């Protein structure tokens, strides 16, 4: 069941992205930004936790899930360390994903070359 719900919720996120892309001719960068920011605010209003309960990885793997982690980190740390927590919490919580992308990106750039199309 987890797998089915992951598939459905994750797929639906992508369908929303596709509609925005095709209908409003938005560049991919705008979609990524919009999705991450909406994930942040959906978490703040307590909606995203419910989505994760239903959708499992279908809600955490898409980019709004990244926004969700950002908000979670910021709010958790803010409750512990006040202002400094709000400043660092989001970065801390999402650091593994960003650092991994940076590390793998750099390694791939060194090893591979762009292919002709």
């Amino acid at each position, binding site marked *: 069941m987890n797998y089915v719900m992951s598939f459905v919720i994750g797929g639906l996120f992508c369908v929303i992205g596709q509609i925005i892309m095709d*209908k409003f001719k938005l560049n991919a960068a705008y979609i990524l930004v919009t999705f991450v920011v909406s994930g942040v605010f959906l978490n703040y209003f307590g909606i995203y936790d419910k989505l994760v309960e239903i959708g499992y990885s279908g809600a*955490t793997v898409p980019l709004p899930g*990244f926004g969700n982690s950002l908000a979670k980190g*910021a709010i958790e740390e803010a409750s512990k360390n006040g202002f400094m927590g709000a400043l660092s919490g989001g970065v801390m919580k999402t650091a593994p994903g960003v650092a991994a992308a940076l590390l*793998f990106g*750099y390694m791939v750039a060194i090893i591979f070359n762009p292919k002709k199309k």
Partner: protein
Amino acid sequence: MKYNKESYKKVIDEYTPKNKIVKNCFMAFIFGGAICTLGEIIKNIFVSGFDVPKDDAGVMASVVLVGLSALLTGFGVYDDLGKIAGAGTIVPITGFANSVVSPALEYKKEGLVLGTAANIFKLAGPVLVYGYLSAFIVGLLSLIFK
């Protein structure tokens, strides 16, 4: 007939081929769903196979997906998938990884410092900027409205 900006817009719309939204959405659903399911499978492997706590397992699954996406980008496969899947390969975290790896690769010839390193967040940078900014705002809000 002389066209002005308004009337020309109508002519363009008439002759510009439309994107195949229904087909694109279907493919986005399939590919996006599959990537998320793969994430769930990896997470469960970590939880049941290595006794990792659920929250950490989710993060580790993301890292694995990021690594897979980076490799596929290096082999020149991810953009071929993207052509079919559209948003299905952009919206998941693998799309974020692809947007980090592809400029790093593209600007390699301009040097590892001013090429690869300077451009590595060329596309993903905006995501981090607005992501961190809004997380900070939400953190502050949570302090103010307890």
